[in-house]
């Protein structure tokens, strides 16, 4: 009998600490499936962020490093330069990649580092209790924007993927979502492309993943998926950006 579906080798057989309906579990699994399919598990070195996914190394079964908040791409740059034969990727949230780590993000991209970046955008700081993120939508209520994000004092949702597009060092950017099975299949294809690009030395490749955070959106898991589909993706349109 042929086994059609099972746990990827790159994913440990443990339960995660993520909240019900959180997108991280799906995103972790997609990364692990891609790594299995490309048979690169023993070459991979991952950089975990600071945020909800900080202990991703407890779930992935390959070499991992932590990085200080926002500094994942600086850490990854050094590792990849020293070990070009390894496959190095960062996995970062919106606060990590697009607020405290904006400088590291822009300059790693501008240097055209041959890295794969998985950027989880859930429009909120999860680990610290649901504060406003750079990607929080206008009007979205968070612990630090109780009346909803106001553009006059809190600015606009930061579209860092679109910003990175103009850099010649950037070779691939796609925005995907986890709100439906079809979109998850598309997300996996984009993640696979971003890893393949590194294998083929194409250069800096980033996949932005719109991911639900029911806990800090104050919604049920089902309503959170609908919110990504009906509201969030209007602000952050899906598809190939570069």
């Amino acid at each position, binding site marked *: 009998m042929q086994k059609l579906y099972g746990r990827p080798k790159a994913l440990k057989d443990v339960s995660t600490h993520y909240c019900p309906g959180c997108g991280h579990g799906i995103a972790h699994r997609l990364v692990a499936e891609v790594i299995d399919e490309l048979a690169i598990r023993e070459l991979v*070195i991952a950089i975990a962020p600071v945020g909800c996914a900080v202990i991703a190394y407890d779930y992935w*079964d390959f*070499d*991992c490093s*932590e990085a200080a908040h926002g500094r994942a791409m600086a850490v990854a740059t*050094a590792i990849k330069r020293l070990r070009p034969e390894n496959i190095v990727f960062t996995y970062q949230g919106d606060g990590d990649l697009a607020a405290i780590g904006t400088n590291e993000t822009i300059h790693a991209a501008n240097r055209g580092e041959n890295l794969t970046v998985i950027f989880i955008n859930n429009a909120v700081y999860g680990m610290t209790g649901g504060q406003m993120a750079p990607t929080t939508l206008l009007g979205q209520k968070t612990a630090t924007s109780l009346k909803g994000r106001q553009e006059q004092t809190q600015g606009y949702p930061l579209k860092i993927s679109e910003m990175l597009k103009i850099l010649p060092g950037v070779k691939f950017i796609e925005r995907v979502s986890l709100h439906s099975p079809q979109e998850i299949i598309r997300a996996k294809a984009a993640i696979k492309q971003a890893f393949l690009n590194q294998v083929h030395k194409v250069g800096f490749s980033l996949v932005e993943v719109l991911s639900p955070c029911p806990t800090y959106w104050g919604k049920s898991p089902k309503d959170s998926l609908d919110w990504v589909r009906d509201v969030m993706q209007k602000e952050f349109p899906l598809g190939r950006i570069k």
Partner: protein
Amino acid sequence: MKFINKMTQKNKVLMSGNEAIARGAIDAGCVFYAGYPITPQNELIAYMGEHLPDTGGIFIQAESELAAINMVFGASAAGVRAMTSSSSPGISLKQEGISYLAGAELPSVIVNVMRGGPGLGSISPSQADYFQATRGGGHGDYYCLVLAPATVQEAYDFMRQAFELSDKYRIPAMILCDGMLGQMMEPIITTKRKNKIYSKPWALTGCKGRAPNVVKTLCMVEGDLEKLNLSLQKKYKEIFAKEQVAESFLLEDALVVLVGYGTMARIAKAAVRRLRAEGIKAGLICPKTLWPFPKDTLESLARKAKKGTIVLAVEMSYGQMVEDVRLSVNGKLPVEFIGRSGGEMPGEDDIVMTVRSLVKKSRRC
């Protein structure tokens, strides 16, 4: 000015302290450097940019001090000898990364060519980062090993020691040197020799043929962080017991003992010679390791010293190292201080006059 003795692979060259540090790092097997420009250490980053790639190493001009120190984190996690350099304001920025390096027990070398502070301060030499260097500097209970060269030759030689000790103890090592030494040129002997290779089974290389490695500092399980801290403390205790280094100069019969490091030690040495010529029995202790501070040398001095012996700390600060001097002699000898900061330093005359008046005062009482 340059000749090469091919037999011994010794090479006599004229270099600035900054260049000597860079050359010393390359000769010590450093293969990764990331830095960001700041005066007065720019010759160091320039030398690395010119010469490190020739040896197969990686040179990156980072977008910030934060990025540079975190690149060093990545390079060290990948198992190679890695370093960064900066000057005071830049070192403040690096403190986040240094704390992570200490927590993850990643060997690494950080060079601080000190300038005047606080704030942007000035580009003139200073020793005002002593507290920051010797008390950890960032958050958490940790220390960096701190070496303080006083000559350009030592600036070169100490790089090899810094990398060795850093690998041996898995601890960040800092070279603390004032801007005067960074800028000053002296002839030095560079030595090519094989460097000791430390096995790094914890390094991130891809998990082929072994269980995955994780480099981390987060310890969320109750008790884990205390365990990490206790093991760090054990290591620090061992380093404190084994690695103190100080140079003693005319100490045996000295009744006035100057204590100074870096450029101040050289000025103090000249003052000691002048005071001896005047008939004042002066001597000098020059700490080469600032952490661990050479407490044993000071303790032994306090034990053996004749009655009336005076200790005088000399610094390019308003009194930082002097605290360690006081802690070491522990009230057994009077400890005086002379220092200037903000880009100024006590001169030979200032030290000589201070000693004369201290001696006069002690004779009166």
